[in-house]
């Protein structure tokens, strides 16, 4: 296991929900926890901060066991989903709050607040109250306040979920930039896979209170270790394996491939060994998505989604998928199709 960074083994049980999650984040990484709602993402963060009690397991940060350290001594800052800016304090007072707690002198405090405000691009906002800020500005202040506590670990709980799509994209780039500038180990919870894939060094996929997979974004996308991860991250097609694969061993399994791995042919493809060929699929709908077309097709009664560059001229098309791109899931095992 890792010796540096964050190492968690979390166990806690609640009414109708048990959490049992193990994962590690390396020093300086920006890791995203992603999963459907109710999978235990937010609970995980609350357990790490110590706001919720841990039933069993441990939390280790840079080699120190934090399990019995009180919340305010953990040096783990958290940005809450609804920002939680103190409404009776100005922007500057909010950011200065953790500095005051650490008995930092007033002159230094003012300087640090200025630095942090410029880090989050909010120069000149010192005097404002939280109800005079937009959602995106509140988010930045909350981030600056969290950074002011000089945390060893920064937790972000769905920080962008309350913002509109355009601002979300911009702010997630900002979060990445601020992370790179400060180098603080960061754990980021989201349910938006695009957000996770685009900014994370590491993706931790959670499902029903357990960690399903942890790894680099590409790894999780291209080599999912379970059908859940495969279908949860990105779009994909699943078909019963026996339809295409006559081997006895694969009868009960499911094959999986991504829409962009499908090649659409104008003519009937020849017998080409490294490929699986699908002929006479019916096009049920065709969406223009700007750079490409997204086709909903039906092949032998099964829906298959594929991307292609041109709008098909006929309602019946043929396509193929390279065997090396196809994953075969059987029970809890997964492997590539034999070529």
């Amino acid at each position, binding site marked *: 296991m890792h010796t540096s960074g964050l190492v968690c083994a979390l166990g806690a049980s609640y009414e109708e929900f048990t959490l049992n999650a193990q994962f590690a984040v390396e020093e300086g990484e920006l890791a995203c926890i992603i999963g459907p709602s109710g999978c235990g993402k937010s609970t995980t963060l609350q357990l790490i901060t110590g706001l919720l009690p841990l039933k069993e397991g441990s939390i280790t940060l840079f080699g120190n066991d934090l399990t019995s350290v*009180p919340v305010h001594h953990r040096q783990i*800052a958290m940005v809450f989903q609804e920002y939680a800016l103190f409404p009776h304090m100005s922007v500057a007072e909010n950011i200065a709050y953790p500095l005051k707690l650490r008995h930092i002198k007033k002159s230094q405090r003012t300087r640090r607040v200025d630095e942090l405000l410029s880090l989050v691009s909010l120069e000149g906002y010192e005097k404002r109250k939280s109800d005079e800020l937009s959602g995106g500005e509140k988010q930045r202040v909350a981030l600056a306040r969290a950074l002011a506590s000089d945390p060893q670990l920064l937790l972000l709980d769905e920080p962008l979920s309350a913002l509109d799509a355009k601002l979300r994209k911009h702010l997630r780039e900002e979060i990445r930039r601020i992370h790179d500038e400060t180098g603080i180990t960061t754990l980021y919870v989201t349910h938006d896979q695009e957000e996770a894939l685009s900014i994370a060094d590491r993706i931790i996929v959670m499902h029903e209170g357990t960690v399903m997979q942890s790894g680099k974004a590409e790894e999780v996308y291209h080599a999912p270790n379970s059908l859940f991860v495969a279908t949860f991250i990105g779009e994909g097609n699943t078909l019963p394996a026996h339809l295409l694969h006559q081997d006895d061993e694969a009868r009960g399994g499911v094959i999986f491939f991504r829409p962009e791995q499908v090649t659409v042919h104008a003519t009937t493809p020849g017998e080409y060994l490294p490929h699986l060929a699908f002929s006479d699929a019916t096009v049920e709908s065709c969406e223009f998505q700007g750079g490409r077309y997204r086709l909903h097709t039906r092949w032998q009664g099964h829906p298959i989604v594929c991307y292609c560059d041109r709008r098909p001229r006929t309602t019946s098309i043929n396509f193929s998928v390279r065997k090396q791109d196809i994953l075969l899931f059987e029970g809890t095992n997964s492997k590539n199709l034999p070529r």
Partner: protein
Amino acid sequence: MRLREMEQSRFYQHLAVPALLVITLFFLVPLVITLSSAFIGPGGGFSLAPITRVFTDPYILRIMRFTLIQASLSTLTSLVVALGGAYLLSSYSFRFKRLILALSAVPFVIPSILVVLGFVIFFGNNGFLNTALMKLFSLPEPPVRILYSYKAIILAHTFYNFPIIMNLVATYAMHLDRRLEAASYTLGASKAKTFFAITLPRLLPAIISASSLVFLFCFSSFAIILVLGGGPRYTTMEVEIYRQARMVGNTGAAAALSLFSIAVTSLMLIAYNRSQRRLAKSEAYLQPLFLEKRPAGLVGRALAALYTIITLLFVLAPIISVIVRSVYSSSGFTLRWYRQLLNVERATSHMGSALTALVNSLLIALIVSFIAVSLGIGLAASIQRRRRGRGTLELLGMLSMTVSSVIIGLGYFLIASRLVGRASLSYTLVVLAHLVIALPFALRVLLPEYRKIPATYTNSARTLGSTPARAFFAVELPLLKSAMVSSAIFAFAISMGEFNATLTLASSTIVTLPIVMYRLIGSYNYQGACALGTILIAVSALVFIATTATKGKKHAY
């Protein structure tokens, strides 16, 4: 190590300790002492004799029956008067609507001794109403003779309580989603059908809730009955408890009656709480949709005018009468009673103790409001931020509401009679009794405001490095500032106007503003009483302004 879990909850548990100590020592212990005398026989040992004697005495049984009947009747008349007004206020907009709605909240803050005084001054034989009618129609005799009768009690209760029902039901109705009625109309239902099938069932919890509150007020009404009842003919439980303890000296009978009274008030409070909970669950609280609909037709306009007059007559007229009478008598304008109050002029009768009473009342109210808010805030924090046992703690905080203030006073009277006391000790007892009475009200103001503060504020402060205590003082307390101010004013006013417990527990040497007012009314010095009443009106007005001001203000969390 489960230390972390303990730490925060331990802090909040400690915050409740002072309030719980006060509740136990100064409410539960006196109550147990009071009620235990219901089980002590003439010989001194355990006996059910006081209870059986009370519950077989035809005189007492008649009082019980009368108490329940007058409370039911008063509630019913209040309901009848209130519902039309509530309908009018919630469905139409008319000239004096805002004024009526604001005035209907007045009885929440006005002390009962003031109601009595206003009633006598306005409806009395030489009151403003009779004087005006006699002048207008040149009558030789006052035409309205209702003082000291059954009618007077019901009328005073109605005057005191119908605005409460009207206010609660109308406010609730205004926040209901009117699109449901619109949907019903589009589905083909008539106006009447829609009202009975859609509107009324949704209003019912609010009506039940308001009615049970009013029943409770009427059941434990004390000052109104004491003054307007005119003797043993129209006596209720509360007055009888006071009479048995203070005049007859039969504390056993008083305790036995208290048992019955507590049983009824507890039942009513349970009903009230259940309907409140149903209300909270039943429908989303919408921003009021102001329908700019004028009352249609002659009937509608007449109804609007009628309710404007009724509200002004019942709520405002007696109060204004008190102020006017304090400076204006049949011989013209005079400041004599204020001069006597301030000891500028030699005082007559009970006016001699008026200044002392005013100073006492102000001091007692200041102390009570300060302690009540401090205890209330600790208790509210503890209730709100704990994981388990919230309901039990909240119930403990509200418990003294189940016991009428006469019974609370009785407990202190029993304690005081055992201690050979100096005046300062008696005043301490008055402060404690007021504190016990004011605490639930302070809590009721603070708790909803506390609930509005999201837990993430504290959590956020904690992850930024604050201890639970620092997070509480730096984040939560500043956010509760306005709630603390309004609960302090509330507690202050309750203490200033408190009459029932003070009269029951105090020896004759103890004077507060309401006590002196009562004595002045008893000796027919109405003008002096009105001068003191005007001061009490000023305090009530302050509370009224404070509560309506905070109601409009919304925090953006």
